């Protein structure tokens, strides 16, 4: 894995930089197109096309640009506008809070129940290792709500609300996080639900509806892709003891066993921010995501040689698998005994 990493890092250069600048260019054109069409959204075809363009713009901004830039994948370009230290994305979640909960907590402690708060986001029961209680009967309902309001869920993630409920964390401890949330979400709401509608004059309600629809589509899409990354059947979770004192090889192995890919066309991969290559992303989170496809061949080959699972499937199959798990884990009799997932016991020779 380290050798593969080195080979790709040495090859990074102009093509990767041009690719990202090209994606940014396409995204901003889609955004302007979407805003323009929604201003005249009184004509139904313009409304539909406008929602589509704006939703695509937001999806590309959040996934292929935002997520990846904030991982530091393109820091080597030294472009202030595309640097992990300063980049902000088109969602209500402040980048700084997200970098803490995602880049650090989730990518370091991937799928360790009790440490990686992306396991269920503190709301859902996504692993048998999470103890069932009456609250989890609503698992499917919470999932639908989270999908609908996903950007707000992501925004609240770093507040660690579940720790506030249990008293592990005090309300005052969240003041820094809260301040950033308020500042960022006001700006986003101001843009999508006040200023652009006002600019449309008499058609303000139509523009508002269009912007809300674009945000909703982006929410459903990003929720789907992200939940397919770690929760399909066959993806492992780990205990804190299993991950203690792990070597770099074992860390690689946990990333591999804890992630799942989605198959699809090149355009599909772009729209997922290449998170359809979740396995490669977790092995190499700071390498430009456009390289994951070429890296996957080597990773897959290593999995075959060492008899390790390489979890992949089409979007509908993976989504179906996630949905089944969400419903199943709502029920009290699903516990540790039902566990068919591989554990981290395999020796990490591959790395």
């Amino acid at each position: 894995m380290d050798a593969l990493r080195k080979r790709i890092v040495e090859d990074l250069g102009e093509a990767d930089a041009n690719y990202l600048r090209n994606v940014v260019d396409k995204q901003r054109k889609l955004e302007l197109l979407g805003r323009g069409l929604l201003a005249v959204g009184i004509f139904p075809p313009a409304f539909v096309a406008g929602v589509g363009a704006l939703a695509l713009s937001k999806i590309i901004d959040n996934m292929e640009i935002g997520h990846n830039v904030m991982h530091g994948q393109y820091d080597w370009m030294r472009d202030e506008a595309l640097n992990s230290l300063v980049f902000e994305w088109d969602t209500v979640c402040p980048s700084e809070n997200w970098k803490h909960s995602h880049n650090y907590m989730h990518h370091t402690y991937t799928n360790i129940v009790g440490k990686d708060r992306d396991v269920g986001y503190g709301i859902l029961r996504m692993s048998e290792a999470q103890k069932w209680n009456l609250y989890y009967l609503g698992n499917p309902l919470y999932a639908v709500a989270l999908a609908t309001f996903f950007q707000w869920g992501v925004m609240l993630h770093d507040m660690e609300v579940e720790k506030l409920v249990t008293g592990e964390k005090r309300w005052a401890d969240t003041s820094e996080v809260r301040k950033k949330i308020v500042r960022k979400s006001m700006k986003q709401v101001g843009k999508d639900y006040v200023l652009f509608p006002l600019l449309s004059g008499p058609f303000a309600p139509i523009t508002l509806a269009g912007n809300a629809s674009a945000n909703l589509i982006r929410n459903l899409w990003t929720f789907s892709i992200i939940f397919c990354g770690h929760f399909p059947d066959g993806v492992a979770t780990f205990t804190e003891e299993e991950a203690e004192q792990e070597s770099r090889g074992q860390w690689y192995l946990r990333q591999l066993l804890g992630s799942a890919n989605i198959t699809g066309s090149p355009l599909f991969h772009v729209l997922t921010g290449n998170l359809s290559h979740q396995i490669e992303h977790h092995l190499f989170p700071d390498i430009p995501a456009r390289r994951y496809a070429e890296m996957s061949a080597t990773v897959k080959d290593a999995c075959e040689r060492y008899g390790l699972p390489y979890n992949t499937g089409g979007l509908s199959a993976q989504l179906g698998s996630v949905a089944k798990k969400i419903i199943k884990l709502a029920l009290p009799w699903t516990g540790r005994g039902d566990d068919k997932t591989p554990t981290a016991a395999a020796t990490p020779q591959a790395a």
Partner: protein
Amino acid sequence: MPTPANPRPGLLAKVGVPLLERLATPHSPDRYLEMINPTWSLREVRGVVTSVHRSAPESITLQVQPNSNWRGFQAGQHVVFTLIIAGVRRSRCYSVTSSEHHRDGLLEFTVRKGPDGLVSGFLHSDLAPGTVVHITQAQGDFVLPSPRPAQVLLVSGGSGITPVMSMLRTLCDEGYTGRVTFLHYTRRAEDVPYDDELTRLAAEHDNVQLLRVCTQEDNDRDGITGRFSADQLEQHVPGWRQATSYVCGSARLVEDVRALWAEHDLEHLLKAEQFDPPAAIVPTDGEITGTVSFSKSGKSADNTGRPLLEQAEALGLTPEYGCRMGICFSCTRRKTAGNVQHLHTGEVTTESEADIQLCVTVPVGGDVTVDL
């Protein structure tokens, strides 16, 4: 009635700019403005290269038309000049060489080709008119006082000619009547950029004394030879003690000049600007040398060879960090001097201004300074 120096910002600036920012959030409006014209920006200075020509065998001179955000400069100041080379943004400091009074507002830069200069090499072989560059506002206090002093002595060596060329041009343009001595050192006569212009300026202005010195060939066209020395100065510029003096060039020239002025208690009349020697790439394997300094906290210690994050913590600093294994970028900070090596990639970063991940970066080959 006197006109105000800065016209009051119009309605467009007062209402339009904040509105644009609100609409473009979370991105900068520049991201959209540059779709219409790549030099458009609300605040950044960007410019377009209007001409490129060779001013000496190893020197290239380019002119840049800055956008309206440019607030002007004083002769002798420099800018940080940024352009994209092979996908990566690269920045270098260059002095402006044009006159403060240049009529069409073009900024001129002259860049000497370094032995393996990435940016200067690109400027020499690939820069074409029409290229868009980013520049900062003018910086530095290596400038002429206002009102102008009675006598000016400009000493330069090699590419150190650039800021003093701007001073000479500015003084000539504004009809300065005091005495100006332009003392310039190069290895060979053909290395002097602006050679023809210097000859012309000296011919047109009686108060300009031109002394071009070749240190590596027998050429006394201005009647002066050899390296800088007190005797040489005494002989050719007898009034040097009364002049407001400027020196720009290699470390050696600057040190020699400084020493002489110090000897005569004339330091208050001298301003000096020294060229940084090119960063030496010497990551000697395993050898742990140098000092690690953290500039914001003012702490420093001998390099222990450990990652910079650990060295900072050992000094009692508490920089933000996350994974401590190079994946989360929480501990990224600006390195302002020295060479460092990334532990995973082995990549050595020599540029003076670079963002590095403290947890997986170690100092190599000498002193390192981090903005922390």
